[in-house]
């Protein structure tokens, strides 16, 4: 049990709770970026360096910026006057409590978890490359196709509609 792990976890969870509960959306997005960095720090402590760098590159550098741009494009930059919670939010909180209780009970009472800590695995980028192009080459190519489709789809969905489309509405 290392203190650095606990401190990083506390910072990450605090940022995540703040990301979900603040009134101002831009503050939520910035706290989300902080929680992503916290998760990257947790990956670094679990000896998964490549995944930590990828997390910062993909999530902090791209997804957080995307969320911020979407907030500005939908004019949600100002704080809302009405309530920020949806109708029926108590049901949501109740379900969350049930989910967390189930997960926590399963983790703490499981006998399938290994009790000994193995030494840290040495992962070189060459191993990752060999595995990706050897055993997992099919998922790699499919992910390439999915990313291309997502990129084209996102551009098409967010394109401004032509005026003639509005006349053809039934």
């Amino acid at each position, binding site marked *: 049990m290392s203190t650095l792990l606990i401190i990083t976890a506390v910072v990450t969870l605090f940022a995540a709770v703040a990301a979900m509960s603040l009134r101002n959306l831009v503050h939520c997005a910035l706290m989300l970026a902080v929680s992503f960095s916290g998760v990257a720090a947790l990956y670094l402590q679990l000896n998964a360096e490549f995944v930590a760098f990828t997390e910062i*590159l993909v999530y902090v550098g791209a997804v957080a910026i995307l969320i911020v741009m979407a907030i500005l494009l939908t004019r949600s930059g100002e704080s809302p006057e009405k309530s920020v919670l949806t109708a029926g939010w108590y049901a949501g909180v109740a379900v969350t409590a049930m989910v967390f209780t189930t997960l926590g009970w399963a983790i703490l009472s499981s006998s399938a978890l290994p009790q000994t800590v193995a030494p840290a695995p040495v992962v070189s980028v060459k191993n990752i490359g060999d595995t990706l192009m050897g055993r997992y080459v099919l998922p790699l190519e499919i992910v390439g196709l999915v990313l291309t489709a997502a990129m084209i789809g996102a551009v098409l969905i967010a394109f401004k509609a032509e005026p003639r489309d509005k006349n053809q509405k039934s």
Partner: protein
Amino acid sequence: MFEQLNRFFAPVDQIFVTTLHWLVGFLPAAWRPVASSMLCIAFILMVFPALFSIVTIFERKGIGRIQNRYGPNRVGIPGTKIRLAGFGQFLPDGLKMLTKEDIVPRAADKLVHFLAPVVLLIPVLLTYAVLPFGRNMALADYDAGLLFFFAVGGAVEVSVFMAGWSSRNKYSLLGAMRAIAQMLSYEIPLILSSVTVVMIVGSLNLTRIVEAQAGHTFGLANWFVFTPWGLLGYLIFFIASLAESNRSPFDLPEAESEIIAGYFTEYSGFKFALFFLGEYLGMFAIIGLGITLFLGGWTAPFACLDFIPSYLWFLTKMLGIVFIFIWIRATLPRLRMDQLMNFAWKFMLPLALLNVLVAGLWHYLAIGPLRWIACATIIIVAYVALGRGLMRHQKLGQRTYRYAD
């Protein structure tokens, strides 16, 4: 004869490493890794801000001379009458920034406004950890060092947005949006051009990439910039690093004649100094990466000059590229936002993708004149075709030149 020179100067080459080991040797063994890292970090924090102050003087005097005027030429050592041709200007400038009143707009988001310069400086300083400044002189020799550099460099965009949005100023927000769009667009050619180097070397480790460029053929170094794909790759990297550091001709987000000062309009005093420092440090870091990837890092261009210490070569190359940055800033006019984005997506991205193909072709063809001719032909044809193809609808007038007399 050169081997004797190299052996004579080898201790000078490793002088920083030996000093570090000697200093750290005084401490008990448990404290040594931490102390070693702290000393390296302190060294980086002393050298690069000092380089920043010298480069600001060079920039102002250089731009002044290119514009047919003197730059700062009065301040030497403050308090004395020694003029030093203006090279002491950074001292009063720094004092001025420190003592100016710190004005925060009333409607500004105070915490985010305060944290934006800090969030800019932290990733920029982190990127210096993986650059190899000399033989055995990289602070953190990660296996995935190049990925670390790009990941942490991409975190700068969050700070730009924080600065622009928290000022509650339309100019700031507009400047921040433009800066983020520009940085995102030019990150892709930047990363694609470095993918070609990774392909040829087979590793993301920056020290291995420098060592792969260490030999000499016919007296000239094996730098990647002396190959067709390396030259195109370095040109793409160079232009993209101009755009990533918001330098002219890509400085629309912070242009004084267009948008006042862009996303740091509402910053004064020390926070402005921090932004300025962060921007220049980011410029040095990405120039350093370009030198590592394409220009051979700390290796010498000719085999006979190998005795000069490796860190001096790195510094010389960095100062040379900084001089070219200053030269371009003084010479070229600013690009408009749509011209900038067109250039990135329609010209640099296809060329960078083609460069990956050409690098692969280079690797698989036999060594000899055939691969030079084939790769160079493909690159030149693509460059001319893309250039002419994209410009065919522009109706440009006759080019005229006017010189100041």
